[in-house]
């Protein structure tokens, strides 16, 4: 279980997170929604341990990662898989080498076993036979799938997705979402996804949390969030452009 309590973060004079409280249960798909620039990716970077909060804590199964450094933090991260917004594939390596990279660097598996695992993961994301290609030679959707394969190759317990469908066409968005659901069913990892794909994410999420101006304004099942009386949530779901009066916020 991931427990976020009282998380605050500011960059210079700009507050980005203003007291986040959120529990993510083991094995669920939690989707964090909210407007662009609202702090979703910053929250995710705190969960991964790439950013340190000004105040507040992030605990993974009781271990407070905000206090950890170096090897201790690495041991927690070994349980993670992360799919970055742009894929973050190493452009000096082939698709296969990208997927094999975490195993080569972190595991004691032999070359043949690594090769087998890489082929298996590429097959699971529908990219069999594409291993020899360079990331620059494949499409945006394929790059996302390679990133997903790389994040899952170490069989992590928790997988973070930072806007995994940004920049893709609607068909590819659904393809990636179905792929995530399928892989989640198969491997039962805890998934934390940052997205603003409305309404598609309601189909795949176990729970949805809405982040607005640095605080979580709504959290619950997709049905509960859809039915929320909070005008900010409704405005975001409907995609309305009129602003919510200050008195009605939160």
């Amino acid at each position, binding site marked *: 279980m991931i427990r976020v309590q009282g998380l605050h973060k500011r960059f210079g004079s700009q507050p980005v997170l203003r007291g986040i409280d959120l529990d993510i249960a083991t094995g669920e798909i939690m989707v964090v929604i909210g407007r662009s620039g609202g702090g979703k990716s910053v929250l995710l970077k705190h969960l*991964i341990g790439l950013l340190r909060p000004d105040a507040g804590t992030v605990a993974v199964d009781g271990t407070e990662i905000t206090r950890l450094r170096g090897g201790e933090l690495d041991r927690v991260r070994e349980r993670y898989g992360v799919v970055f917004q742009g894929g*973050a594939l190493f452009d000096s390596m082939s698709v296969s080498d990208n997927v094999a990279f975490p195993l080569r660097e972190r595991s004691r598996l032999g070359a043949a076993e690594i090769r087998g695992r890489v082929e298996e993961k590429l097959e699971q994301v529908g990219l069999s036979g594409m291993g020899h290609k360079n990331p620059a030679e494949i499409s945006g959707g394929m790059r996302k799938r390679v990133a997903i394969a790389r994040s899952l190759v170490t069989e992590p317990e928790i997988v973070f997705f930072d806007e995994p469908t940004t920049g893709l066409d609607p068909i590819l968005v659904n393809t990636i979402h179905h792929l995530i659901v399928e892989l989640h069913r198969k491997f039962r990892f805890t998934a934390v996804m940052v997205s603003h794909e409305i309404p598609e994410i309601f189909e795949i999420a176990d729970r949805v949390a809405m982040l607005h101006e640095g605080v979580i304004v709504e959290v619950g099942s997709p049905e509960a969030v859809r039915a929320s009386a909070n005008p900010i949530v409704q405005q975001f779901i409907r995609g309305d452009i009129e602003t919510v009066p200050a008195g009605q916020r939160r």
Partner: protein
Amino acid sequence: MFSSPTPELWPAPLRPIAALGGLVLDVVSALGRFGRFFAQAVGYVVIPPFKFGRLIDRIHFIGFRSLIIVVLTGAFTGMVLGLQIFLTLSRFGSEAYLGPAVALSLIRELGPVLCAVFVTGLAGSALTAEIGIMKITEQIDALQVMALNPMRYLVSPAILAGVITFPLLTAIFDVVGILGGYLVGVELLGLSPGTYFGEMKTFVTMSDLMTGYWKAISFGIIVPWVCTYKGFNCGHGAEGVARATTQAVVLTSILILVWDYFLGSVLP
């Protein structure tokens, strides 16, 4: 951690002093970060696990890929030296000293300095750009979340590769340069080969060779240190990477010349 004073909060007459204080604090803070970056990189050179594969890759990146430019520039530097020194010495009737003059200029000074400047332009700028692009495309974050330390993976092997390759590249530059001087002095201007090399053996000592060697090693640290630091601290987007690359090349070139003067005045 320092925080710069904000001059606008000070009474008007004191604002220039506050601004100057802020500037000094910024510079000291930047130097501190720069020094800590180096200390961390050196720490990961000596603390296992070692990334031998990355070291070989960086030796190839910095050393092997710079070989052609080092040979080419070394040859022409030696040829220019041979021509100019010959013309100067001939005014005093001392052409016999062409060999030692070319060799000493190259071994003590021009070899390490020019080699380091050319390798900065070629491999140093590429190091900054590569790491900068890795930073803006979240590849460095990806390394971190895979529990791989980016300093250990990207910086330490580059610095160690610099220490290994720079003396070798400098030696190649020197040898090719001396042969370039030979080509001009002996083959074109008529000096005897025995005079060119014979006088060289008389005047070039082990301490001259060691001076060049220590300079090359120190430049082998400075170039990857500055270039990887600039890559790690580049700004956003393509413009940030471009600016970091320019700054890396300019700063490294200046540091090479300053450090060369310092070592030249300290070493025998």
